[in-house]
């Protein structure tokens, strides 16, 4: 079933497409989650949380250094409180740089690793000086020297932070770019899948539409073909009926021809004998008139007349018998009347009727039908069946044979009668057997076969007589027809 297969294939591709899309979407989701993480991380690592603390730290370092320098070198030193504030501000930035989120990112830098411990160590030492009130000027001067020495380290920290931030930004940008490329590729893939699906759906729809139209066309064609066939069939039935009637008429003609031929002998004989008797009567009259009659002449004449009458009587009886047969057969053939009859008689009459036309063949017909079998049926159609089977045997089965024997036998069993017509002819091919009962099947088309004979036989047996017909044929050794008939035909006397 191509439609079922197509449906299966369609469902397969649909499922595959949808699963692919789902898988692609899942991957997309994962990538997007990754991207989200990167974005969140970059929010967490805002540049100011790395860069700004470093810059702030350096700024506060410089301001503290300036304040310290003023405290040590200026003639108008600042308030000790001011110096402490600057120191605390610097330390607040230093602590932030050491403990805040920047530390996690900057911690890996070698600059940080070398500078931060130094600064922490310095701060611990510086605390001791700064917590004194007022601070010792000498100690402050020492601090200034240390602070000046540390300036490079603080600067390096800022540069490292700058560089680290630049690297981070670059890394994150690349990561984002990579992820967005993946997303684009996946989206593109999905688009392609969707596009392919759309095209496939469109094509499927178009194809289905075409198929639907084609189907509509076909069914409309079929309808008109069916109508045409209906008309043809009706015409065919008419023709078959006509042909069947023609066949019946042809059978009748055969019967008439053989009866007239048969009648011509007894009637001719009678006519000739009548003429002979007239001549003898005239001769006798002449002798009587001449009064020249001897007793022996009279005896002779009477004997001749009696002989002639006997002959005429026999011939005329034969003619009358023939006519009676003819009348019966003709009646049966022409009327399809139902009556109760002896099967043996009807078959005998048919065979007798056909005998003259079959005389020219070297074959013979053997009848073996018990007189006891009677049927309440249609003798005409039954006769037609026998005529057709006999004709069929003589025309086809015995073709090229010179010793054909057609055995017609019957047996009764309950209310069924089995009539068998068996020949020892050429038999039939299985191909021929298959088409045997089809109208217009013939192997003798060139020689005027109508191809209706067996079709009519089948019709008559099954429809009119209410029986069945079967055959058993072997190529080369003959055919046996078996006609199973009900003793009482259907549709008759209730």
């Amino acid at each position: 079933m191509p439609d079922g297969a197509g449906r299966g294939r369609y469902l397969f591709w649909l499922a595959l497409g949808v699963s692919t899309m789902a898988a692609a979407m899942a991957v997309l989701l994962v990538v997007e989650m990754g991207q989200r993480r990167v974005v969140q991380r970059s929010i967490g690592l805002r540049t100011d949380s790395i860069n700004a603390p470093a810059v702030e730290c350096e700024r506060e370092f410089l301001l503290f250094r300036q304040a310290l320098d003023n405290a040590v070198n200026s003639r108008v030193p600042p308030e000790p409180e001011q110096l402490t504030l600057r120191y605390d501000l610097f330390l607040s930035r230093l602590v932030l740089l050491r403990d805040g989120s920047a530390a996690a990112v900057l911690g890996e830098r070698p600059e940080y690793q070398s500078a931060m411990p130094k600064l922490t160590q310095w701060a611990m030492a510086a605390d001791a000086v700064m917590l004194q009130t007022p601070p010792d000027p000498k100690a402050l001067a020492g601090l200034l020297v240390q602070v000046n020495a540390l300036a490079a380290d603080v600067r390096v920290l800022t540069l490292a932070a700058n560089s680290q931030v630049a690297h981070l930004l670059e890394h994150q940008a690349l990561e984002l770019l990579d992820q967005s490329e993946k997303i684009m590729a996946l989206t593109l893939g999905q688009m392609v899948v969707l596009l392919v699906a759309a095209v496939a759906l469109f094509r499927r729809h178009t194809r289905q539409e075409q198929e639907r139209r084609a189907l509509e066309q076909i069914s409309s064609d079929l309808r008109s073909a069916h109508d045409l066939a209906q008309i043809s069939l009706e015409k065919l039935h008419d023709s078959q009926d006509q042909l069947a009637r023609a066949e019946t008429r042809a059978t009748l003609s055969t019967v008439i021809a053989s009866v007239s031929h048969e009648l011509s002998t007894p009637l001719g004989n009678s006519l000739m004998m009548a003429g002979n008797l007239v001549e003898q009567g005239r001769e006798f009259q002449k002798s009587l008139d001449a009064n020249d009659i001897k007793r022996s002449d009279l005896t002779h004449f009477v004997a001749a007349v009696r002989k002639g009458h006997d002959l005429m009587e026999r011939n005329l009886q034969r003619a009358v018998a023939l006519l009676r047969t003819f009348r019966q057969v003709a009646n049966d053939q022409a009327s399809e009347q139902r009556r109760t009859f002896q099967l043996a008689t009807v078959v005998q009459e048919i065979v007798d009727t056909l005998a003259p036309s079959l005389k020219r063949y070297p074959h013979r017909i053997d009848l073996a039908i018990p007189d006891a079998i009677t049927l309440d049926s249609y003798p005409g159609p039954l006769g037609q069946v026998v005529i057709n089977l006999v004709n069929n045997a003589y025309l086809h089965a015995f073709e090229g044979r010179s010793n054909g024997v057609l055995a017609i036998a019957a047996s009764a069993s309950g209310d069924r009668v089995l009539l068998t017509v068996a020949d020892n002819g050429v038999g039939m091919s299985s191909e021929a057997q298959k088409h045997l009962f089809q109208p217009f099947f013939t192997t003798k088309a060139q020689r005027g076969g109508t191809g209706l004979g067996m079709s009519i036989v089948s019709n008559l047996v099954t429809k009119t007589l209410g029986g069945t017909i079967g055959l058993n044929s072997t190529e080369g050794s003959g055919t046996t027809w078996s006609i199973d008939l009900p003793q009482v035909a259907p549709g008759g006397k209730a």
Partner: protein
Amino acid sequence: MPSVSRRSFAHRVSGLVFLVCLPAIALESPSGKVVLTIAGKIGEKNTPDAAVFDMAMLEKLPQQTFTTMTPWDKAPIKFTGPLLRDVLQSVKAQGQTIKALALNDYQTHIPLEDARQFDVIVAHRMNDARIPVRTKGPLFIVYPYDTNPALRATTYYERSAWQLKTMRVE
């Protein structure tokens, strides 16, 4: 969000109630070290140009305490201090914006609306301890970040001035 607008409305109303009902108590003068100076459009001053506060004055105002995560620390911190709107009320601030200045010259602008809308505090204690200059003190503008996702944004982080020294109402 309805809850936010309801809150803001409530605060606006409460702000009005304060404005209308509280009798004007003349601002006292600081006895200790000045930690906060408020200048600009204010109706109450205790110096010729500004209102100045020492820690005791700030501690006399109604105190607010909350614990929140901040972007500057790994653990949540408990902050204590007066509400910004109470501080502003005490000087009869009448402007749109506060320009906040820090000891390290950091500057940021805080809309007065923020003080009404959110429970912003001027924190002077972190985890119940005074805040030294070394750790973002002595005063620290803190928003209740954990109560509203909208507050966990750069805008509000930038407005959270540490080492707050001066506020100028504009």
